[in-house]
């Protein structure tokens, strides 16, 4: 393993320390427990958005803390969900009295830890709701299983919901917006190489010189299928088609019910894309794939979307949700409505996403 790191055990902390000194105007990093928060938090009267998850996906989530996006982010160890005390302390720090939305990716670890944090925060009198992101169409089954992973749509939900909180949306309204974004988003990824977790020191999986993993997640977990490498156009088509052809998908998720004061099972349904839909197209690098290649994928994605009468009205192209040094990419398509477009366009100023300000 060759990486620009010191001792692997210090990887996450040192990276956060670097981030803190790089962007003191935007963020602060709290240690023990670890979380990143807006320098100007708490914003009185504003709903605060807190997300988090394992480290190794930089800039997600810490790089999205700032004006118009996240109020705080809780980084765990590499690929390991953060702990409830991180989430609780982050919530306390950024609570402006209007409540907290936890945006949670659908992994058993993240869910359990965020659920515990929700219970703890509620018991301390902080209003918390949690919304799950589960958009990875590589995962097929939903009945009796963990369901789909949370991937690319997370970044888009954080941007859109962050903008909504700046515009004064209340907690329930931000939560429904976030749920809607999740239900409108679908993703699919491919790995050309495995990532190498610093503490492990060797690649998580081994791929031959002409092999790729289709349908991977963002933790070096193997994908659905190993196949021989194809052209960028074929890969873009395969990724895009598995998203476009994904039929309506329903599952049950647990959300906190404020009226009942307990967890309730909520039945949710994604509807398949339809001709004429306006979409945001997000082509994401897994960390080791350069921008030049992402544009080649995007070029074909535009053709596929045109062919299926999906109208790309916004895009995002770059390394926003990575898997350490993995080479590969993911595509996310998010169906947009006017409200979402306006919120997407709203100003954002974070270390890794910035416009309009």
């Amino acid at each position, binding site marked *: 393993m060759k990486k620009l790191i010191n001792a692997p055990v210090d990887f996450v902390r040192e990276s956060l320390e670097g981030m803190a000194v790089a962007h003191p105007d935007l963020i602060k990093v709290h240690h023990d427990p670890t979380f990143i928060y807006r320098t100007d938090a708490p914003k009185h009267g504003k709903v605060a958005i807190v997300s988090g998850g*394992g480290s190794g996906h930089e800039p997600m989530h810490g790089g999205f803390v700032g004006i118009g996006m996240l109020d705080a982010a809780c980084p765990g160890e590499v690929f390991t969900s953060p702990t*409830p005390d991180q989430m609780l302390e982050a919530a306390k720090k950024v609570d402006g009295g209007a409540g907290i939305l936890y945006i949670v990716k659908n992994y058993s670890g993240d869910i359990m830890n965020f659920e515990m944090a929700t219970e703890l925060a509620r018991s301390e009198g902080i209003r918390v709701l949690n919304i799950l992101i589960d958009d990875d169409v590589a995962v097929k089954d939903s009945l009796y*299983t963990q369901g789909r992973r949370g991937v690319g749509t997370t970044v888009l939900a954080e941007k859109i919901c962050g903008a909504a909180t700046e515009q004064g949306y209340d907690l329930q309204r931000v939560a429904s917006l976030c749920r809607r974004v999740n239900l409108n988003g679908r993703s699919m990824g491919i790995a050309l190489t495995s990532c190498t977790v610093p503490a*492990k020191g060797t690649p998580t999986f081994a791929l031959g010189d002409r092999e790729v993993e289709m349908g991977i997640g963002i933790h070096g977990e193997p994908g659905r299928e190993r196949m021989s490498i194809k052209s960028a156009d074929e890969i873009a088509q395969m990724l895009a088609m598995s998203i476009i052809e994904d039929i309506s998908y329903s599952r049950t998720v647990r959300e906190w019910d404020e009226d009942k004061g307990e967890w309730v099972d909520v039945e949710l349904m994604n509807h398949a894309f339809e001709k004429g839909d306006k979409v945001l197209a997000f082509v994401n690098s897994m960390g080791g794939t350069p921008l030049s290649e992402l544009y080649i994928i995007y070029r074909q994605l535009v053709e596929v979307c045109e062919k299926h009468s999906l109208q790309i009205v916004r895009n995002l192209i770059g390394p926003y949700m990575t898997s350490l040094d993995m080479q590969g990419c993911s595509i996310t398509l998010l169906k947009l409505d006017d409200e979402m477009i306006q919120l997407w366009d709203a100003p954002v100023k974070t270390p890794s996403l910035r416009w309009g300000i």
Partner: protein
Amino acid sequence: MKKQQILQWLQAFATEIEQNKDYLTQLDAAIGDADHGMNMSRGFQKATASLASVADKDIGTILKTVSMTLISSVGGASGPLYGTFFLRASTVITGKHELTEEDMLEMLQAGLDGVLQRGKAQLGDKTMIDVLSPAVTAFSQAVGEGKGMHEAMQLAVAKAEQSMKNTIPMIAKKGRASYLGERSVGNQDPGATSSYLMLKCLLETL
């Protein structure tokens, strides 16, 4: 089982994890994200380090301390699961400095129930439940038949070892391995493996 043995057990488990850290991570690399060994190691290093301050307290307090350390330092799936296991285990034996067979059964059963509730996995989902649940059943049965602590635990651990191997052909339904669907077949579940090691160390400390 005396309090001193409980402390020895936790220490032995921590050592066992260090010895099997790479092995557990390797198992997790095959069907997960290659960190189970690291997660368990981080948690139990901290947990055993925290034992000194509560060594003179009752077993319930000791297990609760372990639980709190795990919850706030492990993260991932195993953090809340093992954390909940020890938390629930601790609550049913509050104040005790020694455990009878019945206490042990109650403790293990409470821990298992906690994990079931927290993780919502069922038998056959290819998780630690597939070791914990049959092992507790075996222990319960043996105690019901009047067997002593050591013999009952021996039966439970034998069952645990068999059950751990039984996870190999299973299709994962919970946790990260579930994303793999059919491709999870042929690999032993890392959490089931660490749970077996936990029970094995318990037996060895008796």
